[in-house]
């Protein structure tokens, strides 16, 4: 700080020096220092010589004017000979009384111009004579203003502008000459009569009032404005008789007061009693130092000019100074602008950064119950060193204690006591791991039919799915009849296209190629019918319990027939899906955490579209409340921003927790998601669809609804209407239906319709209201 200030002072000093140099230069010029002809260009010298000769000729011999004066005049009038001549004529009275030529009015006007001009340097001189004030404010640069910005132009009216206005420097009429003579006489008289006044003051009061009034009138009009004077005095006729013309009508009140005994006599005295000192010429004061500061920065001429130019804003006197603008904090973008610019830029760069790194994928493990999803997930995590040996040992011990030692790995994902005691996954568990290329988040979805809604919630967030099927005899078949089929249909209708079928428990069938092929064929037949493209489906034999072909290759000599990749390699090879980063923000709340000390309210979910960063404001739908993002956590690490496709935990502020529920959607306030009460959807029916009551699922959201109308049955491939107003939609058919919701909820994109514990249809919302 002190450093800066010191710099500022130095700088100001420079400024002072600069200005004074300028001034010195100016005054020098103005004081007629054209005359060192050394400075003149050759052209100017020629013109000067020619002009001089002409002027001399015009002046003739009657004027004694030096060459230097002529040059000076020419310089000032830019070699205008006639102007210079008239100026010089005025400068020196002719030696002979008879002039060669009567000067025209124009010349005289020019002449007076010349006199004003000549006075100019004086004015500046007066300027500089305020040495005390200048010294006093030496370090304040705004007093060192250039001449044209100075306030004290009050000198100008003081100089006899009479001549400018009158146009002639000498009395123009006999009348005026008479008046002038009379005035002079009166002044002498007045000077003589002065001492007598004081004693007689009291008796003469009314009289003096009249005379003074008259005189004031004459002064006011005569001194400052000849034209007005002429105008006023013209009608009054005998101007020569009483040349103190009343500029204002006589006041009638005079008459009553004249009823006093003495006064008629006094007023009757023919010539007004001459009175004392003239107050009027002096009554206009020079501004004091204070006034100079008050108005000095704002000389009337330039001030008003500026005002009209800049509107009615207050202009700082030194605002035009380039040095000031350089330092002016308002010249650059405001701090807000900086932030906004950075934000807009930042979002862009975030995306650019995100793209190469957009390896983040969400994998959903799905299968029929007990086919070993959780175990497979636990194996993945364990082999990839996400969980250490020690905690796995602990889980093993606990699992041994209740006689389910094979569940140890599954318990990595299934952490609640209910899940552990029942041995099934109930709610979605998430965990993440990293391979060399990619970062994965895995969701372990429940397989049991009772927990299908939870599975939908998980599947809706997934980029691709691992369908786990049990290779064991009977298990596979029962699964295919059970949830394996439903899950596959669900993930497909949720928009998941890529599927890895992990044929699990291969160790149970002693890594038999036959069994693997059999399962592959059956599954691919089914999956193709469900809408998966064969190239997007991969089959990987593995064993979650032993870890064969999950991360590590299968045990030596067990699976010589298999030439494909391990599960993890397969995951790595899967293509990345496109992220809707450019779209407005959509984040479905998957989980809500409350009661943290530093972050009392946090929500977790996957950003479906858009991007967000710390400090953003988000709108929570359906409640319509706004919240501010205080912090972002990605994989237990703080982050400044997040983009579509990432699983994030957001710490929110400025919102009451009652407005947040599972399944609510966070969106950008500028592009909010609509609350939907009814919608038209194109559905793929899994079972018979009649006008009936259903449950609409999307992510965590689920709400009771009715299929109110079946609009049409569509062609599966072309989408054309094949039958209007059907009575029912057959399983496997595509139809357009209208669904009325009980509550308005934010819905977009894909939905699942379930009824009576099974999935009835999956749909894509076409229009909503």
């Amino acid at each position, binding site marked *: 700080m002190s450093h800066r200030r010191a710099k500022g002072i130095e700088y100001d000093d420079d400024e002072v020096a600069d200005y004074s140099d300028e001034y010195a230069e100016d005054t020098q010029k103005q004081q007629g220092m054209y005359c060192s002809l050394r400075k003149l260009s050759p052209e100017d010298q020629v013109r000067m010589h020619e002009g001089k000769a002409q002027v001399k000729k015009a002046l003739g011999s009657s004027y004694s004017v030096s060459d230097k004066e002529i040059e000076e005049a020419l310089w000032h009038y830019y070699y205008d000979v006639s102007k210079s001549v008239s100026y010089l004529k005025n400068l020196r009275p002719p030696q002979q009384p008879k002039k060669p030529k009567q000067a025209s009015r124009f010349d005289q*006007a*020019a002449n*007076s*111009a*010349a006199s*004003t001009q000549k006075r*100019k340097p004086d004015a500046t001189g007066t300027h500089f004579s305020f040495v005390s004030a200048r010294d006093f404010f030496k370090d304040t640069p705004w007093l060192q203003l250039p001449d044209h910005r100075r306030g004290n132009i*009050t000198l100008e*009216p003081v100089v006899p*502008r009479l001549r*400018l206005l009158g*146009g002639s420097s000498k009395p123009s009429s006999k009348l005026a000459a008479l008046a002038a003579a009379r005035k002079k006489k009166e002044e002498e008289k007045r000077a003589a009569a002065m001492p007598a006044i004081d004693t007689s*003051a*009291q*008796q003469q*009061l*009314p009289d003096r*009032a009249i005379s*003074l*009034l008259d005189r*004031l009138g004459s*002064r*006011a009009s005569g001194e*400052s*404005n000849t*034209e*007005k004077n002429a105008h006023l005095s013209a009608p009054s006729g005998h101007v020569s008789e009483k040349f103190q013309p009343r*500029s*204002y009508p006589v*006041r009638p*009140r005079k008459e009553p*007061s004249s009823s006093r005994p003495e006064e008629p006599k006094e007023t009757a005295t023919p010539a007004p009693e001459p*009175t*004392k000192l003239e*107050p*009027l010429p*002096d*009554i*206009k*004061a*020079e*501004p*004091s130092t*204070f*006034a100079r500061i*008050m*108005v000095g920065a*704002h000389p*009337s*001429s*330039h*001030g*008003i*000019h*500026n*005002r*009209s130019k800049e509107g*009615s*804003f*207050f202009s700082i006197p030194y605002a035009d100074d380039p040095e000031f603008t350089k330092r002016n904090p308002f010249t650059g973008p405001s701090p807000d602008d900086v932030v906004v610019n950075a934000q807009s830029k930042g979002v862009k760069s975030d995306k650019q950064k995100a793209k190469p790194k957009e390896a983040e994928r969400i994998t959903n493990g799905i299968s029929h119950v007990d086919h070993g999803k959780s175990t497979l997930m636990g194996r993945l995590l364990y082999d990839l060193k996400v969980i250490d040996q020690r905690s796995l040992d602990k889980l093993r011990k606990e699992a041994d204690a209740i006689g389910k030692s094979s569940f140890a790995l599954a318990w990595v994902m299934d952490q609640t006591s209910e899940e552990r005691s029942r041995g099934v996954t109930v709610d979605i568990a998430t965990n993440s791991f990293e391979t060399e290329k990619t970062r994965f988040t895995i969701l372990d979805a429940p397989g049991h039919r009772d927990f299908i809604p939870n599975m939908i919630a998980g599947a809706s967030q997934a980029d691709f799915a691992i369908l786990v099927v049990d290779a064991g005899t009977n298990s596979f078949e029962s699964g295919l009849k059970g949830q394996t089929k439903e899950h596959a249909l669900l993930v497909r209708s949720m928009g998941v296209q890529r599927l890895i079928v992990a044929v699990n428990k291969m160790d149970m069938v002693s890594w038999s190629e036959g069994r693997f092929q059999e399962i592959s064929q059956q599954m691919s037949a089914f999956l193709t019918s469900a809408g998966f493209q064969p190239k997007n489906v991969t089959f990987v034999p593995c064993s979650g319990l032993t870890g064969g072909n999950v991360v590590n290759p299968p045990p030596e000599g067990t699976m010589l027939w298999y030439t494909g990749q391990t599960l993890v390699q397969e995951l790595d090879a899967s293509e990345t899906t496109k992220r809707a980063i450019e779209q407005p923000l959509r984040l479905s709340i998957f989980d809500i955490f409350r009661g943290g000390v530093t972050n009392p309210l946090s929500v977790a979910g996957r950003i479906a579209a858009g991007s967000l960063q710390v400090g953003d404001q988000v709108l929570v739908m359906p409640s319509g409340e706004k919240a501010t993002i205080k912090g972002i956590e990605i994989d237990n690490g703080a982050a400044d921003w997040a983009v579509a496709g990432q699983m994030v935990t957001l710490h929110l502020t400025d919102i009451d927790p009652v407005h947040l529920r599972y399944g609510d959607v966070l969106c950008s306030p500028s592009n909010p998601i609509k609350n939907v009460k009814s919608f038209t959807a194109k559905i793929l029916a899994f079972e018979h669809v009649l006008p009936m009551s259903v449950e609409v699922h999307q992510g965590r959201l689920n709400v009771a609804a009715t299929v109110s109308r079946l609009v049409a049955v569509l062609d599966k491939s072309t989408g054309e209407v094949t039958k209007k107003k059907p009575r029912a939609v057959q399983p496997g058919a595509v139809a357009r239906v209208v669904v009325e919701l009980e509550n308005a909820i934010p819905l977009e994109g894909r939905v699942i319709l379930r009824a009576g514990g099974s999935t009835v249809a999956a749909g894509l919302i076409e229009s909503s209201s």
Partner: protein
Amino acid sequence: MTDRRRINPPPGGTHPPIFASTLSTPSALRPQRPTRTRQPSELRKIFLQTSLVPSASGSAYLELSPSSPPSAPPSSAAYNPSALKLTCTIHGPHPLPRSAPYTPHLHLSTTLKFAPFATRQRRGYIRDAAERDLAAHLETALRGVVIGERWPKSGVDVVVTVLEGEEDGWWGDDVGGGEGAGGGGKGIGGGWGLMSVLAGAITCASAAMADAGIDCVDLVAGGVAGVVVEAGRTTKGKGKSGEAGLGTVVLDPCPAEHEEVRAAAVVGYLAGRDEITELWVKGDVGADAEILIEKAVEAAVSSRTVLVEAVREAAQAKFIQPAENGAAVGSKKGAGSATADVVMSG
């Protein structure tokens, strides 16, 4: 609940300190008493300039220079000779708020406020009775010149800020420096300074009105005259009171310079129409009230010259491009007449 957000001054106001070291005996203090060096009919010099505040539609600054500058620099700021400095800003004409009832005339609202430091007796931030009174007087003076019919449903705010106010008397009287004899030793009071302030405010507001371009029938100039009793002439004056008055009638009295002010009159005078829009007489005038008023009119006529000059300057600056050196000499002539027109037509 006390106001804890601001640092509030003592409620009663404060004086600039006068230290005992500078206060000698009354007799030593007495030579410092200012005396009137002007002639009775001579006004103090006036500085008046318009267009002071760019954000206002019209503004003016008026200053009365102290008539008798001290021979030696004052030992304390408290001893400064009394003078007058005030600014007037005019905002408008602007539409009246919707809530205001319909008015066919220009609604004039005047505010006069002394700066807290304007006089030796400090003023509060709330307008006191004297300030409201002055504002009412000022409004009366201006109401007579403004052509209000031209702005129905609109208002004009006239705000006068007194930066340095005329004192009501010599400060020495206040601190006991005055003598018991004559009118001295009474302490300051009487509000005589307010008269000069009002006269100045009228003149200044008139200039600001012209600057704001509000139609007026004429320029109104303020003038003040007073009946004063000089120290030496006290007895004589009293003796003569039956004949010609109680004391001397002076123009533009500065209360600090006189032993006692008996009466004073302020007028707002339209010289062009010979009309008085505002008259305020105070004190014991005796039978000669008319003389006093005549004198006040005289003072108004004198101050009008400065007013006219200031308005013309402002008009020139406004309507002519600021001339570069002597370039616009030819047009200046035209400007003079144009300005005269502006002033006269009003």
